[in-house]
């Protein structure tokens, strides 16, 4: 069931052009997922010094500890609620939380990308997903091209 509320929707509101800032963040989260899969979750330690957002740094540490699911989501959401964010900073923080939970759950890359791209809105999410496919971050969803007739 989709859970939503008016207060959250109001707080998340931001200008369409501001949402462009989300794409690099989504790519970064996708890269964390790739690294965790290829080298194990403890390899995320290397990303910590570059995680300038304290929420991202804290979340990565919790994921490395093995926290996942509701406990991880609740803890990260509590940090958000304790900070009174709104607008683009809140939207970015929501992407971080959603991405970390997907990372901890070892979601398939395609599923994780779709969950995160949804924060861009319907219009912007599709181009981002196509871009991720083109860059090889996601496997291609296009059906294989038919063989050319000789």
């Amino acid at each position, binding site marked *: 069931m989709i859970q939503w509320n008016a207060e959250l929707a109001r707080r998340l509101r931001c200008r369409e052009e501001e949402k462009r800032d989300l794409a690099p963040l989504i790519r970064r989260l996708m890269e964390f997922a790739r690294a965790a899969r290829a080298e194990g*979750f*403890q390899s995320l330690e290397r990303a910590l010094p570059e995680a300038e957002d304290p929420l991202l740094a804290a979340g990565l540490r919790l994921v490395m500890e*093995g926290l996942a699911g509701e406990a991880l989501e609740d*803890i990260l959401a*509590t940090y958000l*609620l*304790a*900070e009174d964010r709104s607008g683009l900073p809140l939207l970015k923080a929501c992407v971080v939380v959603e991405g970390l939970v997907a990372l901890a759950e070892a979601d398939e890359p395609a599923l994780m990308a779709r969950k995160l791209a949804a924060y861009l809105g319907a219009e912007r999410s599709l181009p981002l997903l196509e871009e991720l496919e083109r860059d090889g971050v996601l496997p291609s969803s296009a059906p294989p091209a038919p063989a050319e007739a000789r």
Partner: protein
Amino acid sequence: MIAALARARGRDWEALKASRQKKDALFDLAARIALLAERSRQQGISVLAEAAEVERRKALRAGLELVAAGRDAEELDRVLDAESAEPDPGSALELRLVRAGLRGLVAGEHPYTLMRRMSAQLGLEYFDKAEAWILGRIKRRRPRAEDLVVPGELPDVVRDLALDPRFLERALRAAGREIAAASLAGCPRESMELAKPLYGRIGGIVIEDDAAFLRSRLSGDEIAQAQAAFLEIARGLEERGDLRFGGEESLEADPAFIVELTKAIMTLDAELLRSALRGLAPASLAAAMQGMEPKAHDRILAALPKKEAKRVLDAIDEAPPLSARAVVEAGSRLASLVLAAAEKHPAAGKSPLLRSALQRLERVASWPRSKS
């Protein structure tokens, strides 16, 4: 969408302003609740009833009484809601923290997770303080030695998956901490030792504690059920191609690697070999020796003082069979050490035999891990 945010209503979004002093005091309260959770795991739930009797904070006292009486989270919420009428921000923050701790206690969460939950109420600036507190508790912890082995194939599966730790990690994480801990509760110590590093320092202790806690709570049948669920999840992952059961093949190191390392060891200058081995931990040497033929073992043992050779032999006896990748890593580390020692060695580069041995070691040191 993040469910916890979607559930949040107007008042939940109010950042509760409290002084640093108040927050520090609340951090101490969180630590006290986490310690209580730790004691109740060790000594039983009666600890909570005893604590409630002497507790001065009304909400915490009421909550502890309910948890001690085995009441559920809903009832806990009802009682705590009654306490929350128009409190000042400091008291409201305290109530949120107490509620988070008590809910975790009802859910049987690990005390360190409770600490994470409660300290989150104080904001990100308390994240490191909470981690330092947890690490302090870990230092004081006594090692656990108990084993309860439920007959079954899980220990073999864990060992098998651990040949590529990423596979074991995927299976454990896909199973979730509860099933993982309940499954490991019925495994020998070796299984836990293979799983722990995959969760890092804090997470490793949490899974070990949870397994020990569940070992005393669950019946053999319940543990067997958890293990069956774990195996089903692991097999599901295997079908999806997300992991592979290692089998004997993965235990066999690359024969070309073994030949190269053996030849290098056999042709090395004895004095150089001795100086490279000096100070090397027996366990590291024993691991590297898994990638050599027996004649190279003899040469290494002959190069060591008798006492040291005995320690290495003991380490060989104690070491589990390593995965092909781990053997290559250990052999490569040894090769790098010998190469570093050779740089300071007067004979290096002079004899053609030694030159060829060093060339072999260079190849061994940079042996591709994927080859194994």
